[in-house]
């Protein structure tokens, strides 16, 4: 715990939600407000709540930064995450033959979705992009194989059809959007900001 300022984890979260250009200035502004105004007036607990609330107000901006493709990736990741958790839960409850491996695969898919969401939202992509490609290719493979298996099956299942399409979509979107996560400009004290920026 940072005794004079906001909690370190909250500052870390804020810095991750912000691009490189705003990381220093915005975090500094909020820290200044926290130390000078909010904490003396409301106490540490409420000041922490205040800080977290303002941190999270940057999440929407962060989600919108990827444009429609980025938003679609976030949406598909959420759908796949819910489906993965649901499938794992069902496998563990029903305990059909070979349930453990299927539950493990579903949980792995859910974990990749969590990692994708974190990487997309917290600007971790540029440094941790090595896992995108195998994960994206695995999603495409899973999507294709389950789609084909379902199409050939005597009992067509709508749920599997939807999941397979979402997996395919997510795999393609991961390749398209995560591969070129934004590397935004760094700060230069005293310099004017360029009029147009590549955000």
């Amino acid at each position, binding site marked *: 715990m940072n005794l004079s*300022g906001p909690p370190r984890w909250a500052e870390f979260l804020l810095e991750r939600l912000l691009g490189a250009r*705003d990381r*220093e*200035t*915005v*975090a*500094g*502004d*909020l*820290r*200044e*407000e926290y*130390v*000078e105004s909010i904490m003396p007036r409301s106490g540490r607990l409420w000041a922490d709540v205040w800080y977290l*609330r*303002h941190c*999270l*107000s*940057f*999440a*929407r*901006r962060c989600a919108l930064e990827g444009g429609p493709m980025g938003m679609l990736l976030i949406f598909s990741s959420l759908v796949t995450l819910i489906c993965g958790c649901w499938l794992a839960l069902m496998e563990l409850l029903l305990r059909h033959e070979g349930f453990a491996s299927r539950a493990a695969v579903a949980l792995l898919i859910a974990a990749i979705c969590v990692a994708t969401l974190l990487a997309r939202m917290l600007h971790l992509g540029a440094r941790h992009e090595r896992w995108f490609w195998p994960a994206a290719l695995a999603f495409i493979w899973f999507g294709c194989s389950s789609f084909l298996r379902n199409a050939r099956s005597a009992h067509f299942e709508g749920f599997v059809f939807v999941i397979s399409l979402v997996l395919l979509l997510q795999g393609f979107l991961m390749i398209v959007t995560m591969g070129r996560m934004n590397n935004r400009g760094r*700060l*230069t*004290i*005293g*310099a*004017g*900001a360029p*009029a*147009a*920026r590549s*955000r």
Partner: protein
Amino acid sequence: MADLLGTFEQAVMLAILRLEDGAYGRAVLHQVQESLARSVAAGAVYTTLDRLEQRGLINSRLAKGTAIRGGRARRYYMVAAVGNRALADAQKTLAKMWQGVKVPMAVKS
């Protein structure tokens, strides 16, 4: 004529004008909250500042930070000439819209 400004964009730009040389993020946030008389999320203000800067309506410069900020830099904002014109246009448009309209300003109970 410049693109029309939204209400929130106008509030942010007017806050910068009021603050003159002291218009950095935290001060702008305070000023906007004061002028709109409600709590405003920091994300909304900084997103608007970014958008206005991208449109060339405001400019910014960086200044060294203080110890209380952990040495982090401050970004000061200024309204550009295009921004001044856009504000004037917005004011004119609003005045034109209200011309000849009489609304009871105070409701007696």
